[in-house]
């Protein structure tokens, strides 16, 4: 044999025999390299006996010994689809990927009853906080990647990218069934490429595409129930018991002001100084209800009527139905994916629902080997009703929880009979004179009024890729997302707040347009057998515009039905308004990636970014460097049980501009009407010098695959300088605050994913995956205060304090010191500076804010005592933060023969939350304002010597009992059973008869259990963990489904 250089021709195909264009072919040990053409063919000079290394992203490298002048290389998938990281700027081999990223396949998402991908991410990635906020069907969850606080006042939300393009549309416009993969990018290496808005992580959503020569039809049908199943706060259910407590509260007030307590209470219980007498539901006068000697309800007194339990009329089980249908397939030159879906998701609250009809068409064309064109077309129609969810007494959630049981849902006449209403039912009690939620009836409103929303969302994405020369491709992308949102409100002319004006109708049209244009030159080249480089340079521009228009009128003809929502149905004009807001962005991007052997990978990216948000200082430069080292490829690596071991590290600086609207640079001046003349009014202060927040991120990660477990562990730090910081000023300036770029914040944490096959046999598999995250944060610098001539030491921030060296989530408030056993009064701790060392507080020794005082007076002689007057207590850091010690999820996956099961539990350990909803139930209100009580109120102080932490009720004689203090902080540990699906795949013998490839039936349950420190308290439901009055409590869903694949 003569070893002569010869031209070898060959063909590269995948495991299904499809040609693979663009595969890289290298002659081992040389710099000779080429790529396969459109049909998978290549030619290369090599000697017999040389080894060709043929590689293609996502496939295992094939080694072929040259023997003769033609070769056929068949590449097999390296493992699963998850092994590829798809970013907007390219597809990367996960094994070599240098960033911290998690890809979630379509399968786990499809196992959940979700209408929206954001909710599907619960429990699927470490470092991800997913909170639902509302049980209203269709609403998006709030997501945070690596910590609650990316910035103090800047944006902390991640960027969503749909098929490579930043997405500002409605997340619920995307049918989760159309999503192929969802990838969470967490560190600078992964996110720097997205520059502006990538600082808080990126969520990449990639929709499904067709496969060549593989036609598929898939039908998925599921049907079930949404129900109100989870526990609520335990409250006083008996009207008599509630009234006894209110009576006792009045009695104690009477005693407290030096009167005969029982007389005082008898006189006032039902009176203009107490509960409105019309709400006396018993057959006796208000002063004859309670036996003054015992404080107990007189057993001889009977009820005139039984007031309705509001909750029974507000919540009902409701249906959830979903059908999804898709066809995909294609040929070498064109591929298609088509889908249609319909979802009906009805909430358990009155007139709350979500309906979506969606369709998607994704096409790929390759008319010439040098040209690829892709188009994605998605449309959805989403209609929602939001009744009963206002943040006031129109909230059916607040009123059903907090309405004392004496107040009936339906109005009663003097004899206690219900009254017919004009609509043929009974008249709701609109609460004239009702102290709690007066002048409204949330349930009546939820039935009579209209609050609906209809959204059309159109998403079109066009891409061209043009191969200019070997290894150089020009790509152009244009994407547009158009959203038309119509909101209609109607208030009833006969009942409720608009009756004085004959009803009210309001129409809002909101139109959002978002376009992106990106042009890029992409290059890749095998420099030698050891070095492979790829990269691109790109220019992109983007503009988002939202215009809104509202008109409304009074005095209607038709109060319900389709006519009612039209302005032509009403006669009196009211104010109308319209406005447009927009943001534009422009950027230059460069990315460079070098692979050295199989073990090393280096990536560098750079972005020059600009945004219209900053009036003067628009441009910023950002970038990152990252490094991956696969130790298991090294010769010295000798651990037979470990098949893969990679170290990754990255460092980058990323800019962030969002979080304060599009115009924080400008003073706001409103245009108002004064006697039909133009009046202009300053509203708030802008800052024209604002510029980019700079986020500095470091990541160190390990990926491990072994015979025992698979694990990914990351340590990260995310520091933010020149933060958006709302610097408070003394309001005597006429405004409250000014937004500045100042202050520094550190966030750091550890997160892990551990995955273990407990059992793995032919018939039975059981896998456990545990995700966990630990995070901390610290404010290292506050802004400069020009009035003080130094940096601020401290600024309060709701329940939290912003203090140098403190977590931004450390609770800062007055500390509850329990109940004085002598008189039952609530007590709080007070600190004072005992300047004269007499051991007691004298004038001028008060300390209002301990943290700041200590800094200003380092030598202070600080003592502590207890006070019964809330405002005299000292506000201080509590040492308790809202950040859990650890949070994450546990996933169990199992299969037994044709059965499969997957269950997700999410958990949080440690940390505290402020239970505002509970505070409402424990308040010491006057009789008329008294709300529902929690059953814990039974632990209240009753007589001298009682040792309890629930103070005396005395009809607000002691004010501020329920004001913000550590009394309502609660340990926020939780364990939630989020989702389970059990499925059964029918045997082949059965399905072949109908030519199906796969048939599966399944049962799904979502939100099945919440374990927390107190029934009704759900810390996993809001970002802070704190509770609120108006929350649409989580919905539990059960469905049964059937999937057919042909």
């Amino acid at each position: 044999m003569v070893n002569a250089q010869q031209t070898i021709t060959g063909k590269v195909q995948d495991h299904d025999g499809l040609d693979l264009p663009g595969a890289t072919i290298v002659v081992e040990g040389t710099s000779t390299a080429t790529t396969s053409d459109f049909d998978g063919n290549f030619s290369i000079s090599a000697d017999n006996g040389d080894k060709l290394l043929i590689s293609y992203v996502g496939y295992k490298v094939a080694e072929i010994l040259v023997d003769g002048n033609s070769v056929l290389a068949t590449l097999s998938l390296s493992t699963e689809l998850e092994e590829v990281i798809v970013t907007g700027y390219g597809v990367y081999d996960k094994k070599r990927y240098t960033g911290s990223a998690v890809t979630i396949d379509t399968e786990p998402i499809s196992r959940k009853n979700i209408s929206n991908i954001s909710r599907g991410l619960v429990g699927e990635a470490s470092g991800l906080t997913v909170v639902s906020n509302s049980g209203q069907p269709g609403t998006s969850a709030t997501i945070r990647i690596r910590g609650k606080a990316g910035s103090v006042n800047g944006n902390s939300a991640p960027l969503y990218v749909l098929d490579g393009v930043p997405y500002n549309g409605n997340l619920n416009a995307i049918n989760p069934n159309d999503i192929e993969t969802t990838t969470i990018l967490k560190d600078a290496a992964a996110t720097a490429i997205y520059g502006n808005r990538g600082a808080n992580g990126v969520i990449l959503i990639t929709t499904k595409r067709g496969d060549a020569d593989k036609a598929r039809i898939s039908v998925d049908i599921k049907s079930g129930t949404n129900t109100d199943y989870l526990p609520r706060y335990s409250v006083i259910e008996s009207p008599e018991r509630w009234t006894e407590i209110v009576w006792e509260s009045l009695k104690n007030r009477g005693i407290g002001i030096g009167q005969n307590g029982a007389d005082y209470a008898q006189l006032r219980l039902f009176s203009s100084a107490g509960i409105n007498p019309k709400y006396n539901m018993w057959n006796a006068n208000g002063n004859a209800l309670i036996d003054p000697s015992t404080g107990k309800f007189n057993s001889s007194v009977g009820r005139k009527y039984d007031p309705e339990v509001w909750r029974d009329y507000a919540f009902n089980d409701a249906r959830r139905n979903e059908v999804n249908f898709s066809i995909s397939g294609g040929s070498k030159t064109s591929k298609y994916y088509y889908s249609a879906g319909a979802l009906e998701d009805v909430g358990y609250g009155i007139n709350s629902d979500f309906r979506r009809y969606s369709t998607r068409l994704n096409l790929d064309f390759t008319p010439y080997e040098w040209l690829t064109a892709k188009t994605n077309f998605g449309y959805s129609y989403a209609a929602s009703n939001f009744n009963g969810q206002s943040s006031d007494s129109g909230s059916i959630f607040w009123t059903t929880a907090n309405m004392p049981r004496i107040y009936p849902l339906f109005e009663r006449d003097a004899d206690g009979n219900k009254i017919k209403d004009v609509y043929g039912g009974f008249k709701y009690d609109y609460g004239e004179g009702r102290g709690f939620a007066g002048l409204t009836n949330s349930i009546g409103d939820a039935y009579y009024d209209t609050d609906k929303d209809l959204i059309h969302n159109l998403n079109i994405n066009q891409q061209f890729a043009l191969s200019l020369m070997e290894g150089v491709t020009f790509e152009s992308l244009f994407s547009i997302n158009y959203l038309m949102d119509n909101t209609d409100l109607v208030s009833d002319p006969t009942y409720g707040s608009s009756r004085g004006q004959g009803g009210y109708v309001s129409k809002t049209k909101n139109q959002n347009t978002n376009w992106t244009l990106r042009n890029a030159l992409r290059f890749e080249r095998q420099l030698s057998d050891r070095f492979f480089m790829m990269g691109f340079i790109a220019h992109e521009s983007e503009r988002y515009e939202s215009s809104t228009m509202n008109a409304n009128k009074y005095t209607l003809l038709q109060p319900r039905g389709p006519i009612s929502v039209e302005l032509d149905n009403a006669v009196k004009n009211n104010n109308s308004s319209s406005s447009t807001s927009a943001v534009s962005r422009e950027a230059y991007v460069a990315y460079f990636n070098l692979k050295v052997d199989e073990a090393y990978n280096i990536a560098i990216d750079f972005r020059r970014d600009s945004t219209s948000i900053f009036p003067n200082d628009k441009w910023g430069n950002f970038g990152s460097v990252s490094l991956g080292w696969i130790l298991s490829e090294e010769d010295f690596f000798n651990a037979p049980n470990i098949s893969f071991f990679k170290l990754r590290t990255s460092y980058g600086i990323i800019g962030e501009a969002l979080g304060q609207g599009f115009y924080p640079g400008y003073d706001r001046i409103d245009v108002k009407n004064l006697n039909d003349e133009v009046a202009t009014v300053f509203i708030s202060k802008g800052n024209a010098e604002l510029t980019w927040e700079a986020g500095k991120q470091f990541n160190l990660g390990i990926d491990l695959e072994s015979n025992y477990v698979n694990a990914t562990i990351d340590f990260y730090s995310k520091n933010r300088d020149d933060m958006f910081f709302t610097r408070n000023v003394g309001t005597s300036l006429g405004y409250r605050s000014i937004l500045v770029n100042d202050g520094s914040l550190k966030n750091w944490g550890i997160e892990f994913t551990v995955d273990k096959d407990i059992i793995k046999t032919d018939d039975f598999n059981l896998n456990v995956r545990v995700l966990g995250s630990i995070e901390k944060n610290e404010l290292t610098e506050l802004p400069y205060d020009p009035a003080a001539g130094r940096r601020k030491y401290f600024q309060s921030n709701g329940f939290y304090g912003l203090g140098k060296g403190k977590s931004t989530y450390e609770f800062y408030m007055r500390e509850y010191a329990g109940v004085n056993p002598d008189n039952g009064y609530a007590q709080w701790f007070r600190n004072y500076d005992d300047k004269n060392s007499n051991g007691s507080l004298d004038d001028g020794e008060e300390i209002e804010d301990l943290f700041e005082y200590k800094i200003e007076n380092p030598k202070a002689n600080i003592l502590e005592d207890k006070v019964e007057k809330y405002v005299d207590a000292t506000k201080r850091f509590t040492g308790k933060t809202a950040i859990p010690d650890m949070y994450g999820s546990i996933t169990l996956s199992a299969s037994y023969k044709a059965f499969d099961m997957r269950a997700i539990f999410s958990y949080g350990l440690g940390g505290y939350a402020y239970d505002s909803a509970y505070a409402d139930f424990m308040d010491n209100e006057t009789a008329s304002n008294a709300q529902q009580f929690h059953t814990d109120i039974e632990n209240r102080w009753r007589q001298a010597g009682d040792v309890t932490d629930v103070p005396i009720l005395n009809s607000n004689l002691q004010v501020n009992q329920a004001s913000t203090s550590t009394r309502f902080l609660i340990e926020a540990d939780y364990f939630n059973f989020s989702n389970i699906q059990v499925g059964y795949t029918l045997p082949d013998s059965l399905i072949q008869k109908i030519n199906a490839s796969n048939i599966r039936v399944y049962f799904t349950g979502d939100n099945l259990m919440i374990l927390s420190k107190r029934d009704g308290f759900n810390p996993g439901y809001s970002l802070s963990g704190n509770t609120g009055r108006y929350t649409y409590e989580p919905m539990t869903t059960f469905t049964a489904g059937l999937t057919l694949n042909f």
Partner: protein
Amino acid sequence: MKKIFYSLFVLIFSFGCNEDFLEEFPTSYTTPEKLGEALELNPGVGSSGLLGIYESMFAVGTGYENDFPSGRNDYDFGHRGYDVLSDMLSGDMVLGGKNYGWLSDISELTATEDYTNSNNYTMWRYYYYIVLLANSTIDAFGGSDANPETTEAQQGLGQSLGTRAYAYFYLLNLFANDFDNADLVLPIYSNSTSENQPKSSVKDVIDFIISDLTKSKALLTGFSRSAPNIIDEYVASTYLAYAYALKGDYANASSAAKFVIDNSGKSVQSITEIVSGMNDVNRLSGNVLWGTDLTVDNGLDLRSWWGQCDIFTYSYAWAGDPKVADVSLYNQIAEDDVRKTWFRTSGGYTLAPHYKFFHEDRIIGGQRNVTADYIYNRIEELYLLHAEAEAALGNDAAARQSLKAILDHRIPDSSYLDALSGTDLQDEIYLQTRIELWGEGKSYLAMKRLRKTITRGPNWLDYPGESFDYNDEKLTFEIPEIEIRNNPNISDQNPK
């Protein structure tokens, strides 16, 4: 073909963005720069900034209750909202029910001892907001001491100085416990750009007010306003009279009041006008010195003075928290005094101002969109102030004459006044001030200025029969916590 594509893409790639691409401006509101452009293109709206100050005096939310953890405060609707608080503190306006609980903390006198309470904050915030708006226009006219050339600019500066003085006058009354000249009480801002200031003394604040009003009155001489909401020389002189009276300078107070009486052309409301509802500044244009003609476009509803105080408006007064007359004050109204008919006990309301304030339709709970007007000052105040100042100066005859000018339209026979002199006369003037101006936000000013002790009548739900001195901590608002925390130059409450 490939070449055609090449050229096409090269073309696209070279298509950059021009500089304007990155310029975006808000459209739901304007900015100082854009406002400047608008005024050049549309000179007819040149006084919009001034009008904005007046608009803010009745707009909802100027106290920025949303800055406050507890959120919405239904008394955050400008000047007349704080009038309700002060009328209640002075003891003449009683919170007749606590079904909804708004102002329970004023009735119970706890808000005024709790610097975290939102009523302190919204009030402080509102008046200082007016100071800022005034300072912005003052700066635009060249500053407090400018001498603008055009008449228009002089009048603009005059109005701006007047509004600033108005705001400081109320701040001083509401936040200073007492008026010892040296007490440090309020930060003074004389322009719109300074940083947070420390407190200035009572004397400095009063002098600042008087200086502004003196300039304002001079600059507005001869100015004929286009609407009753605009400050003219008579409004400036009204507040000058109040400020001098507060300072104890009765000679100047008297002459400032006399100036308005003699020159404004306004006359005392007749015996029929006084029961006509006090709801229309146009109908009462011969009487009203300063007020606002409210229209549907102003968007006021239940969160308004009418909502809070008028049972003929859909709101709290009607629905369960009526504001009614103190029964002791009511009993001091003569039986034959037409003003006795203001207060009625009917329809479940006891001594509600049925015939003093009402929406013209007189449907219980009826007015939904507020179109009944706000009256800030009327000529009677000047007669009463003049009487008060003259009585203080010992000129009882002149005092009696001014008081009679009102009472002759209220009672059949005012001759009983001829028998009064000295402190008796002064007490009568104070009583008539409280009666005549009930519910108009003036009795608190009188209590403070005359250093009175008030006693709550038996129909109070809280503290019935108890007395409080004008300088009791319970009767004066606190500097809000948010100011103390964020203004590094203020660290304490005002001296007692």
